[in-house]
């Protein structure tokens, strides 16, 4: 019995481990050995050009964007952290300057909501699958049963 349960869950556990390690590698990689120029571009790509539509400071060549880009470059050279630089820019231009919304206050909704929805959907799906399986195993007629009845009624009618 125990061995059967293990066999049943092993692939799922393996998949979970693979997904988690892939996510960990993906999100942690690249923060280690960036050159100052790479860090500047990486921060600038997370800052919205205030006068454009859908462009980051790294992509835009407007005077405002170039000014912000140069300022990011100066602050990177001065040894400030990514978070310090982005929060400095948010304090001057407002939170809307950041392409990633803040994870506190009302902005947290966009981070938390997908998690809640996903968890709710998974739970709902699990419950539905369970109920369908139970319903099927109980007394609901299958399509074969219905065919049988239809044929029987047709014979009776004729």
């Amino acid at each position, binding site marked *: 019995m125990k061995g059967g349960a293990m066999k049943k869950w092993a692939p799922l556990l393996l998949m979970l481990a693979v997904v988690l390690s892939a996510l960990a590698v993906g999100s942690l990689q690249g923060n280690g050995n960036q050159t100052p120029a790479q860090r500047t571009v990486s921060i600038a790509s997370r800052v919205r050009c205030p006068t454009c539509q859908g462009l980051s400071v790294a992509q835009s060549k407007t005077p405002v964007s170039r000014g912000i880009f140069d*300022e990011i470059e100066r602050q990177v050279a001065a040894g400030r952290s990514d978070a310090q630089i982005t929060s400095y820019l948010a304090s*001057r*231009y407002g939170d809307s300057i950041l392409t990633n919304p803040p994870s506190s206050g009302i902005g947290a909704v966009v981070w938390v909501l997908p998690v809640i929805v996903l968890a709710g959907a998974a739970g709902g799906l699990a419950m539905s699958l369970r109920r369908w399986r139970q319903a099927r195993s109980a007394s609901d007629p299958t399509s074969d049963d219905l065919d049988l009845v239809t044929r029987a009624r047709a014979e009776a*009618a004729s």
Partner: protein
Amino acid sequence: MLSPGLPSEQVPQPVPGQQRRNSWAEPRVVALCVGAIVVALIAVLATRETAGKSQQSPILGQVAPAISGIDVLSKRPIKLSDAEGRWTVVNFFATWCTPCVAEHDDLVRFHESNVINGEDALLAVVFDDAESDVKKFFEERGGGWPIVDEPKVAVDYGVTGVPETYIIAPNGKVVASVRGGVNDEALVAKLDDLKAQFAAVNSTVAGSTTP
């Protein structure tokens, strides 16, 4: 045709009562929940502090970011704190920007009426422009207030375009900002208004502290 000998109840059918409950009650509950969430979101978003005024500068009410540099015209070092204790108008401009050119005569008039007599201060910050062009512009069109050419300052103030003008109170806080060109009469009126408000607040504070 259905045979009268075979009552329809004999046709296998889902139990009516139970099926109704499952297929109708749940969607209704889900729909009500989703509706409640949407209503709550709208209520929160519509009533929060920044609703409808997202264009306002976040530095309003904050201590004005420092400005220092070499005056483009006189080549002497200048800084914003030189004007501490006075109302200071900080004007971001560029010679390539048409509304900046248009507001220049207004700034010259404001300089003559309010700055030369030592009452208020005026400081210009160059926005993405060549110093030689700025010099030529002031030689041709007049005006002799200090001009700083430091790109960092525009970012410190969150300037998104020129012209943009900030008013800094004698206590060093940013109290007003104007996007677009200024008009000297409107600027003086705005300053008078702010000065009156400032005096009223200071007198009530003074009044409340005296027994």
